[in-house]
């Protein structure tokens, strides 16, 4: 099983869009995919038309039950995405209370990792979507992954957010004695704007090896797809944006093979 986490402490950079689009494309390529929503705002969950406040089970119960949760219970918490081979582990607002509950308990950052281990035979790919907040949820999601995907909006000030994100990752590596692979994904790239061009150039200069050399273009189809509650790969398979994510996926997967 491959586990990817999409994270950036900065909000609105395309984390959820990246999760949904890559998930849709992987399922289309024939893999069994699970998307996990760890954001109390549950935008990934809503993306698939799931009203998480109506659910009996969500990723929240998984945190509450902790280590005792069984494979069957985890599988029971899943929701169908409407797309074949693509399932969702939904989030609820209650997740927002976890930071306080977990703040002083040791090892609470590893709950998600342990839960995912229990379903390691059930999926080929697990992609986790994070809230844009440094807290126990993001720490859990990052701790669980083998590879971190960091969407960075190509605009001014984006680098500052990225710097913070990498700092957090660095500190986590020390705590966990683990080395993360990470890939920076330039998003919402608009070649007509100076901000996009300059930020992309700076990203390349500062983090060259870690930056995917392509870009995800600014594409209104993403917003339309989310309004239609369909993965972009279904809603507009031939759009520029989906094409770019497909290229990214091929890159990420070729790296999986060579690992």
């Amino acid at each position, binding site marked *: 099983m491959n586990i990817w986490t999409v994270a950036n402490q900065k*909000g609105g950079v395309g984390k959820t869009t990246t999760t949904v689009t890559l998930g849709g494309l992987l399922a289309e390529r024939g893999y069994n995919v699970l998307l996990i929503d760890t954001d109390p*705002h549950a935008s990934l969950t809503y993306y698939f038309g799931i009203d998480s406040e*109506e*659910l*009996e*089970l969500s990723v*929240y*119960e998984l945190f*509450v*039950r902790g280590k005792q949760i*069984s494979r*069957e*219970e985890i*599988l*029971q*918490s*899943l*929701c*169908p995405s409407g797309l074949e081979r693509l*399932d969702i582990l*939904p989030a609820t607002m*209650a997740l*927002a*209370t976890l*930071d*306080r*509950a*977990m*703040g*002083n*308990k*040791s*090892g*609470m*950052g*590893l709950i998600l990792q342990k839960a995912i281990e229990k379903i390691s035979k059930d999926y080929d790919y697990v992609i986790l979507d994070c809230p*844009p*907040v*440094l*807290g*126990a949820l993001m*720490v*859990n999601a990052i*701790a669980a992954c083998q590879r971190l995907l960091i969407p960075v909006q190509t605009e001014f000030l984006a680098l500052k957010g990225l*710097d*913070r994100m*990498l*700092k*957090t990752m660095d*500190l*986590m590596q*020390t*705590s*966990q004695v683990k080395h993360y692979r990470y890939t920076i994904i330039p998003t919402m790239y608009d070649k007509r704007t100076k901000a996009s061009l300059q930020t992309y150039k700076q990203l390349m200069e500062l983090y060259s090896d870690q930056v995917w050399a392509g870009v995800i273009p600014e594409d209104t189809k993403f917003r339309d797809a989310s309004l239609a509650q369909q993965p972009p790969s279904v809603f507009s398979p031939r759009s520029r944006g989906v094409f770019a994510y497909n290229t990214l996926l091929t890159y990420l997967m070729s790296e999986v093979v060579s690992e």
Partner: protein
Amino acid sequence: MSKSGFASEKVMRSYLDALLIEEDEQQALAQPDEAELRPVARLLEKVNVIEQPARAAPSKELQAKAVEKTKARVVTPVAAPISTSVVAPRMANKIAPPPKAVVEEKEYRKGDFQALFFDVAGLMVAVPLTELGGIHNMGKLNTLIGKPDWFMGVMVHRENKLSIVNTAKWVMPEKYDDTLENNLEYQYIIMLDNSSWGLACEKLVNTVTLSQDDVKWREHSGRRPWLAGLIKERMCALLDVSALIKLFEQGQSSLEDMLSVE
């Protein structure tokens, strides 16, 4: 790479270590030679790690107050019961019953607890981690008219509006003058519990594990109900977050008595 201060890095380290290192592992790390390799894990156990003493301790008269037990008052949402039947193999999601509310003693009165120390105009203040709603970087504030002078403004985080309190002005209005104001450099916002209230702070100092005995606990009925107690070692205020939220919501200053915190 980052210019973030050493102190705040330490806070982050102990926070992450607490989350990512399991209890047994942490104990193992406390062995002398192991600890050499992982000095960070030890930070959690030490109470005396703060190198920078508070310049102004909160009012002395508080020390004289008797220590009494806090009453049970925190209402915490509890998870809806989880069905344990494994009849349906997958996706058994149904409509959930509404969560039950249970009256509980404050989490940090039950034993050892962690507190985050932060610094405002030389005053060190601590907040129990269980009552910490999060830490944000200070961003753009929109000021509102008709608000108390200690209300700095509203910061929008995603679609939420956070109400930011000028902590120095609220806690020590008597000392708040132009010189103090000009020297203030608010960098972070300490969010209170699940509320939309946040305290502006200058520096994050550290996260420390405290025992019940490390704190001189306060009875709430008197003045300054927002003080849960004093941390003896460094005479630093431990905030009573729920009382603080209530005061803010009532638009009260720190000096006014509050009729009822309940």
